[in-house]
């Protein structure tokens, strides 16, 4: 059984331990960064091996977080899906996962199940390829 690795960049001190534990309980390996700066430090020289990058940064627009996710992937030479968790949005977006490009997604969470459903779909192919 292959357990995909998620590189989690989670700025919120409240959410970080819960999300890490939930991801581990769901069968993922987790590499953690505290914020953008910490993430860029960690990925340098290809030191982080991940199957998916998950980013939640406070007080930033989803599009700006996506750019940060791209930079992190570029520096870390990671050609993997990037998922951005939007923090503030209107009712019209609630519950939607929007694919922005080939491997980039913004999720507008209605609840936590939605996030784990998206992660499962995005890593399913990786798991099957590795089996």
């Amino acid at each position, binding site marked *: 059984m292959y357990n995909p690795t998620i590189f989690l960049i989670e700025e*919120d001190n*409240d*959410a970080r*331990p*819960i*999300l890490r*534990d*939930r991801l581990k*309980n769901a069968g993922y390996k987790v590499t953690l960064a505290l914020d953008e700066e910490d993430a860029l430090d960690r990925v340098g020289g290809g030191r982080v091996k991940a199957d998916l990058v998950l980013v*939640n940064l*406070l007080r930033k627009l989803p599009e700006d977080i996506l750019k940060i996710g791209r930079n992190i992937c570029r520096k870390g030479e990671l050609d993997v899906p990037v998922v951005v*968790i*939007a*923090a*503030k949005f209107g009712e019209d977006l*609630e*519950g939607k996962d929007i694919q922005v490009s080939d491997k980039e997604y913004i999720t507008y*969470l*209605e*609840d*936590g*199940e*939605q*996030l*784990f459903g998206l992660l499962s779909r995005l890593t399913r192919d990786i798991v099957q390829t590795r089996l």
Partner: protein
Amino acid sequence: MSEQPQIDTRPKNLLLAALPEAEYRRLLPHLKKAVLKQGDVLHHSDTPANSVYFLEDGVASLSVSNSDGVALELSIVGTEAVVGERAIFKHGYFIVQCQMLSDGVSYKISPKVFQKEFYRGDALHDLILNHLEARLTETAQTALCNQTHVMEQRLSRWLLTFADRSGSDRLLLTQEFISNVLGANRPTISVAAKALQDKGLIEYTRGVILIVDRAGLEKETCECYRVIKKTVETYFSLKRRS
């Protein structure tokens, strides 16, 4: 919010119901019934109370916020108490906002009448002082909780307290609404609620949270829930007049 003129002679509000008959009769001509909607602001943070509310049904939240719009809840109020007690102060600097967390029904009274009744020094006076002490304790405990306990515990405490005050384990709340009330990042609430759901303590479907294992949720939460519950039970152990 809308008003209806009729007055129920047996109020569900515990504070009104605990008043001696004579005092209640004195207030009765001044009470107006108001129908409230979730999200209605009963008192704004920078203004004196324009009415004092005795909730008959529903739950309200007392909160403070900063200039960036970040809000923090201090207390949840239900039918056990009153909102707008700031009316007893002749001068004040008001920072607390009161907003309905659910639909509800309330009796409301003018601040001047409420103030006059308070300063008579009869039963209402003592009940309001008890109320203020309970509110102070709850606010202090909530501040401690926010500083020292993890989000899963805080969310558990809040859900249990809300359920206690509303008298139901079925809570009509979106995660967006909860994040605003708790001053938390919205995804944080989603993740914390999922953790409680994975443990079989709550169920969440769009806009409805159901507490399915109350005993388990009480174990999950911190001691703050029990302190706040005991405070309310102690100070609001009101007896209906015969």
